[in-house]
């Protein structure tokens, strides 16, 4: 009996794992029903559906990058105050005085760019597979919203270092909203909290970046995965061809 087996058999082990060791197919299936993190997965899938060719695993890659962003982002939050007087200094301090500060910031930055790439590529791949067709129209729609949220998260995060790159990219980016007919000026004022990018803008973007948008994103990802589980298992015949 291995160490893992003896742990599973102990009183504590039996309270954690709801299912027996995965020996038979039935045990393996039970692992899905009995595990919170795995219950989103189906028990069986078509062989084609789990191949690299099928999805390029871009959805998984996006999720992993999101996890990396949350982990590194929380770390960065410990050293950052969203105010024009402190923000830039905090980043300098982080890079020079905090253990692994520069490294974690690099991880956050590159994960962010890669996530935009991964999510966009995921969408393109799904298009070419025709994965937006019935019964999955609604999941495609959620995917579009997820792409927009990803872009907004990246864009709001871009301002936070409060350097020249950040300040002017956000000035130019938010100026586009002024050209929306009728409500443009009001929308921009709401977004940046004034007429110029300033202290209020930094605070608003920070709140959006660390609280509002990530919560929305995680909520929608849950629905996205749930609909994948419910809708996408029906696709097999359509996509492989009706033999």
């Amino acid at each position, binding site marked *: 009996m291995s160490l893992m087996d003896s742990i599973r058999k102990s009183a504590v082990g039996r309270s954690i794992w709801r299912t027996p060791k995965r020996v038979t197919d039935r045990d393996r299936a039970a692992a899905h029903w009995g595990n919170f993190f795995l219950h989103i997965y189906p028990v069986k899938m078509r062989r084609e559906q789990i191949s690299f060719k099928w999805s390029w695993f871009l959805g998984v890659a996006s999720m992993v990058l999101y996890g990396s962003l949350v982990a590194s982002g929380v770390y960065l939050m410990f050293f950052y105050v969203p105010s024009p007087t402190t923000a830039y200094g905090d980043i300098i301090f982080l890079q020079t005085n905090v253990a692994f500060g520069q490294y974690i910031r690099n991880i956050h930055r590159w994960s962010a760019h890669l996530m935009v790439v991964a999510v966009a590529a995921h969408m393109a791949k799904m298009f070419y597979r025709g994965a937006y067709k019935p019964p999955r129209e609604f999941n495609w729609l959620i995917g579009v919203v997820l792409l927009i949220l990803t872009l907004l998260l990246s864009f709001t995060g871009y301002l936070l270092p409060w350097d020249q790159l950040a300040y002017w990219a956000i*000035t*130019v980016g938010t100026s586009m909203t002024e050209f929306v007919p009728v409500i443009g000026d009001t929308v921009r004022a709401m977004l940046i*909290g*004034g007429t110029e990018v300033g202290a*209020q803008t930094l605070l608003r973007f920070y709140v959006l970046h660390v609280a509002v948008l990530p919560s929305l994103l995680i909520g929608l990802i849950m629905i996205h995965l749930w609909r994948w589980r419910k809708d996408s298992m029906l696709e097999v015949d359509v996509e492989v061809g009706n033999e």
Partner: protein
Amino acid sequence: MAGAAVWTSWDFLQPVAGQAGGPVATVTPDAVPSETVLEIPSMRGYLTEAEGEIVSLRWKCPHLGCKVPWCESSGQFECPCHGSVFNRVGEYRRGPAARGMDRYEYEIVDGIIVPDTSKIIRGAPVGTLETINEPPKGPECLEATSE
């Protein structure tokens, strides 16, 4: 209920007064030049004079919000971001901008020009004729660095 929630959040998140600018004391009218412009960082703009009138310009490009620098050699405003060009009083000459530069309303208080940066007068749209006759007087700053 959803409507009420949206309306309340919208109302609560309106920019706080004072964040959207306000009156800024600048200089006396005699200090404002009529050949060139005077940059006033505190009001994020320029002061100049045309036909006895003070012109209080906002430095933000009406295209996408870059700061439009004054080009001394050509005597016009030239935006480095996307190449919009305006004359000395901020009227549209060329480029992707859709209107002339904005102006601030101002008052003269105790002999000092006080523009109010929260009161913005939109620039005239493209196609409006220029009110001053000042063709570019020299080489443009834009061309010196491009290509």
